[in-house]
């Protein structure tokens, strides 16, 4: 069981990283980005393509990450330009369309077969009580925690963070006060694109690595983000890591293989029910 849970921690780390990005996006630019993981997937596939063309691996990975950043920036630019005051639903719907576009685009460019990735961090890191913990696991968990803490510090302690929160709460008022709303919004997209591209590049070698599976990592990640109600970064990290460990632990029991697929959905439903225990209306008045 412990072996399984620890094995699932690498996946948990990527859930946590994506969940942190989803939470940041939901808070700062008012969108649930369904193409969050797909952006990372696309970057990872670009990296593989370059690596196959005998580009040095570090350069290939860098190019892939760069591609993810640019993609994210383009989607952000589209939304910031044409839907500056739209509802969260309307914005999120755009990311559903871009999710579809990215997955089918990757089928065309890279084929539908799963890819073999060369590991960025190969091999085990250390052993705990006879259970091996891989380097990827350590890196992912550290990355998730580091990103959450860094985001928290930037948002609460720096001038940029104050501007970002102002934009999130009152975009029009912020704009009137001279905060460059659009560049900041696109900046959030660029940064989350970077984080997710890095995370997927690291974790892709250990996952089912076809385009759809990697893109749909956004589902367990949103389950994790829902634990924090798309507001709290710490709970998003904890939710992601816990979900990964639960899935890893259940993987030990073949008879639970059908149940395993439904764990994210069940958690999503449970967290939703918890979040909505109070009456909620669509408008304040």
């Amino acid at each position, binding site marked *: 069981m412990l072996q399984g849970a620890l094995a699932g921690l690498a996946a948990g780390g990527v859930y946590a990283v994506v969940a942190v990005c989803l939470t940041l996006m939901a808070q700062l630019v008012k969108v649930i980005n369904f193409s969050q993981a797909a952006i990372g997937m696309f970057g990872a596939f670009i990296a593989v393509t370059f690596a196959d063309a005998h580009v040095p691996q570090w350069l290939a990975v860098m190019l892939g990450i760069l591609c993810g950043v640019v993609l994210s920036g383009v989607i952000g630019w589209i939304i910031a330009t044409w839907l500056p005051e739209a509802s969260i*639903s309307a914005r999120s719907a*755009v990311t559903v369309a871009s999710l579809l*576009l990215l997955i089918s685009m990757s089928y065309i460019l890279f084929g539908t077969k799963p890819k073999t990735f060369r590991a960025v961090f190969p091999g085990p890191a250390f052993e705990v009580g006879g259970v091996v913990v891989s380097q990827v696991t350590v890196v992912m968990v550290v990355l998730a925690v580091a990103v959450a803490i860094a985001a928290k510090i930037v948002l609460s302690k720096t001038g940029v963070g104050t501007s970002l929160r102002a934009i999130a709460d009152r975009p029009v008022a912020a704009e009137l006060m001279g905060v460059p709303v659009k560049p900041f919004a696109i900046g959030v997209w660029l940064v989350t694109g970077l984080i997710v591209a890095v995370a997927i590049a690291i974790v892709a070698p250990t996952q089912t690595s076809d385009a*759809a599976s990697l893109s749909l990592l956004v589902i367990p990640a*949103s*389950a994790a983000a829902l634990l924090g109600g798309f507001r709290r970064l710490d709970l998003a990290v904890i939710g992601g890591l816990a979900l990964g460990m639960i899935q890893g632990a259940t993987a030990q029991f073949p008879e639970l293989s059908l149940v395993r697929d439904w764990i994210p*959905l069940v958690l999503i439903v449970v967290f939703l029910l918890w979040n*909505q225990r109070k009456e909620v209306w*669509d408008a304040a008045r």
Partner: protein
Amino acid sequence: MPLVDRVFRSRRLSPFVYGALALLVFLALGALLPNYLVYLAITAIVATIALIGLGIVTGTAGMIALCQLTFAAVGAWIVSLFTVLQVPGGYLLWLVAGGVVAGLAGVVIGLPALRLRGVNLAVVTLGFAAAADATLLKTQFPGAPQGTKVPRPEGFTDDRGFFVFCAIVLVVIAVAVHFLQKSRFGSGWRSVAFSERGTASAGTSVRLSKLSAFAVSAAIAGIAGGLIAGQVGTAYPAGFNTIQSLALYVLAIVSGSYLLEMALFGGILWVLIPELLKRLGIPQDWGFVVFGALGIQALTTNSNLGQDLRNAVTRRRRRRLQAAGAAAESGLVPLGEEDFATALTTAPAHGRAPRALLTVSGLSVTFGQVQALQNVDLTVEEGTIVGLIGPNGAGKSTFVDAIAGFLPQHEGTVRLGDDALDGLPPHRRARLGLRRTFQQDRVPPSLTVGDFVTFISRGRATVAETAEVLEFLGCPPAATRISNVDVGTRRLVEVAANLAAKPRLLVLDEPAAGLSHEEHVAFGQRLRLIPARYGTSILIIEHDLDLVRSVCGSITVLNFGEVLASGDQETVMNDPEVLKAYMGETEML
């Protein structure tokens, strides 16, 4: 008018006529289409059915649902299972059973997401699609490993026959959905997409509206899935995967599939684009890239092909009507003094002893540290008009929200006649006869004035009553689209519709904002006629003291959440405390 024309113009008959015509076209297509196209045509029809269902959720009720083909898989699964088990009843019955089970699945999936916004439904449905997808890949459809074939219905066994069968199912579903959209259910769906508060205040349960939209959509998808099982014989998970559900959602947005003919257009695109790409030797995955790009375009410009086409048609028609001089003038005109006096005196007098209708006692509302209302008492007697006034921030709108049921955490009691309202949700209070209007525009622009009156009155107002109340308040005629009505007049339409619901108490939250001076006067006259004419008492919140003076017998003044003065008009308006609150201390010196 020739008979043909009359049949087409009749609102009740025309759906059947169009349905019959569509069926004739499909019959002709079934006979004429070349063999290799018949199979594709079946796919287009099935996709159309799924899109019609999706249109209800995404277009009409404004939610994001990403698991339409998973519901289709449920339908296909049931039909396959019944085939294996050899359940008696035959294909048609299995098809219906598949629809019912998919509808139930929709209820289960929809329930947790209902009280929150559409985005949560998107997360849940995407999760459901992916989970079901993974499970189906492992389990396969019943009978699939053995290669069991789902039998097609008798008489429709070859492809041409099955095409006709699917076309019949499509036409039946399209006509049924047309009537559903026109019904109060349909208005509820549109209203919920526009404003949940407005929907609840109309006595319609927000949850039930959303859930019914989602369940109907899922059931229709289930039927589409059952048809797919009949089409392919043995269903495989690849036909129902998550990516295809995403693509179908995007296509529903692009085509505007809440409009029935546009669902058909979408269904045709669903097969046409991949087929064209195949002919051109381009990988078929480009099809979804095209859908994705079109989807981004449609979503960012908030437009879709269907609505664009319809708008173009209505613009042409309106121009023709205007050319014919048919533009109807409406507006609220003050009655002459004599007419008004006659109207007042001829109104039937109650003659009963005044009875308390609304009794609010000890009402307090706190938001965190802020005491918005403290210990407010207020009574509205039957057949009277009571004014609630006070400076900005005095707590007037909070008071309305509290008695209408939007602030369940308030303290104190609210009674309407003999009914205690405490703890009831807004839609239950509305059904008991407490209606309210909003300061903000809460009238869904996608409805016509008549549909809106029917919806708000919960179907109680007859055509004649609707016309009467609309004329009484100088509203545009029932067939007018609300999107063509200016915002000030929309407020009047809102009042008229709520009057048509014949509530015991109507709470008007600044109803005269946006009206001209002349309309103000006319509106005041109409208000005074309402209690006798419709048996409705009124509590009015208004900043315009002239209007308040002219209509209210008694007035309550709120200031900083407390009752500053209460009583008959004369006393309250001359109360120095009230004058101070309104004019400020220095003015008094």
